[in-house]
């Protein structure tokens, strides 16, 4: 209990004084995760829509695999990306290991299946509503996908926020591929792991409260900007 209240006080103090180290690692957390979610969404949303409007023999298997990959263990993803990017691995010449780029790559792999799967489920229902209309208008597949993506944007936003939530709180993969280097790849979650290792529970908890608050503020901000839960359904 003492650690908890001290952690809360620590968090408030560091936020109030705009502690430069805290600002630095918070911005890096956001930079890595927002970039990863943007890239993942660019891949996953069209993929989800394509899966909703296309019928082919392997579709149910692709969807089953996608759903299973939602639970990809981050530490395994981290290990695979690490082995790929290591100087003795296939992409070693790029020198990307222990950089924010490596962390972004790992997070893209972790969140893409999640966003694609949630997007597909939302758009599948929308597609059953739109199916007759879009077919009768003789639309191309590209137009159908674009229509679904635009009209389903609220649900897709939720899919992206779920991806953001998974990525911002993730520590296993980015610890391995980023290495938790001070001022370079240290983000909120790896800093929490480090401070716990030092036995500084109050600082670790303080960083944890900052992380949770950040996730809540960002979600509220996006919801208010996109005016969800206000007007009619669409």
């Amino acid at each position, binding site marked *: 209990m003492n650690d908890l209240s001290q952690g809360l006080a620590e968090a408030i103090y560091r936020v109030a004084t705009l502690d430069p180290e805290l600002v630095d690692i918070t911005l890096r957390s956001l930079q890595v995760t927002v970039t990863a979610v943007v890239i993942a969404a660019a891949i996953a949303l069209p993929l989800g829509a394509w899966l909703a409007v296309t019928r082919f023999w392997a579709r149910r298997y692709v969807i089953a695999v996608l759903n299973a990959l939602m639970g990809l263990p981050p530490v395994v993803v981290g290990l695979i990306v690490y082995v790929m990017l290591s100087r003795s691995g296939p992409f070693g010449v790029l020198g990307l290991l*222990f950089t*924010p*780029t490596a962390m972004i790559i790992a997070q893209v792999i972790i969140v893409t299946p999640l966003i694609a799967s949630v997007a597909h489920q939302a758009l599948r229902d929308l597609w059953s509503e739109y199916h007759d209309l879009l077919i009768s208008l003789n639309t191309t597949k590209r137009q159908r996908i674009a229509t679904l993506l635009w009209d389903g944007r609220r649900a897709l936003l939720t899919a992206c926020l779920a991806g953001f939530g998974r990525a911002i709180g993730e520590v296993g993969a980015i610890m391995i591929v980023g290495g938790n280097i001070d*001022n*370079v790849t240290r983000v909120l979650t790896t800093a929490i792991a480090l401070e716990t*290792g*030092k036995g500084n529970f109050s600082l670790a908890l303080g960083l944890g409260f900052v992380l949770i608050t950040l996730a809540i503020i960002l979600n509220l901000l996006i919801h208010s900007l996109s005016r969800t839960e206000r007007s009619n359904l669409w």
Partner: protein
Amino acid sequence: MTLRFISCVLAVLFPMLAHAETVRMAVTTSFENSGLADVLLPPIKDELDLDLQLLVVGTGQALTLGAAGDVDAVLVHSRAAEDAFVAAGHATHRREIMYNDFVLVGPSADPAAIADATTAIEALQRIDRADAVFVSRGDDSGTHKMELSLWDKAGIAPDDLGTSYQSVGSGMGAALNTASGLNAYILSDRPTWLTFGNKGDLVLLFSGDPALFNPYALLPINPSRHSHVNADAVARLEEWLAGPRGKAAIESYTFDGQPLFVHSAVAN
């Protein structure tokens, strides 16, 4: 517009391109958890204009990173593993920088009475006889290797200790957290123990045996194996650490007036 967007994306993806010279060094968790890293990094940045990037891992993983060429240098504390590393050609040489010692930490009630032991080996034998809980790093780190060699010299196989031997497979700080929670005995390096923030009921019970000597050495990665290694910068770093400025910085780091690391490098 498109061009600007692409350059923005690139700037986000590759923020490291515009930086000063950087050296990546894999160090042991005791180096970082003890707080020495925070003392050494600023003067290295100021005086050598080097961004020293530390990867904090156990000695075993640090050597693996070095062998793969993922770091420019390794700073670890396990003599036998270091000599094998140099012999295998992964590093150009071994330069001893500093030392401190290991200590045995345990519950203040000291059920195994290791405070009365005369040697570290006897202390471990007492822990075994009392069937007291012992937390092991279990992560192939320098501290773990030291602990295993002590058990070996004591004629005890840790596997035979059963449930009273808890191998946690994590860094020094995390292992100390576990020992604190279990109120168990543990082998730690002195600086990490002294600066550790969650001691609970644990106290320092045994130290001073020469067998607990703990030297730290720098191993520059062999540039003929890995051409991308920043060997010049590592050489400058080595001279700085071994020289008078490194000595002053390392020995300025004290806890309650005691230096935590003793500089031992011989300047060229």
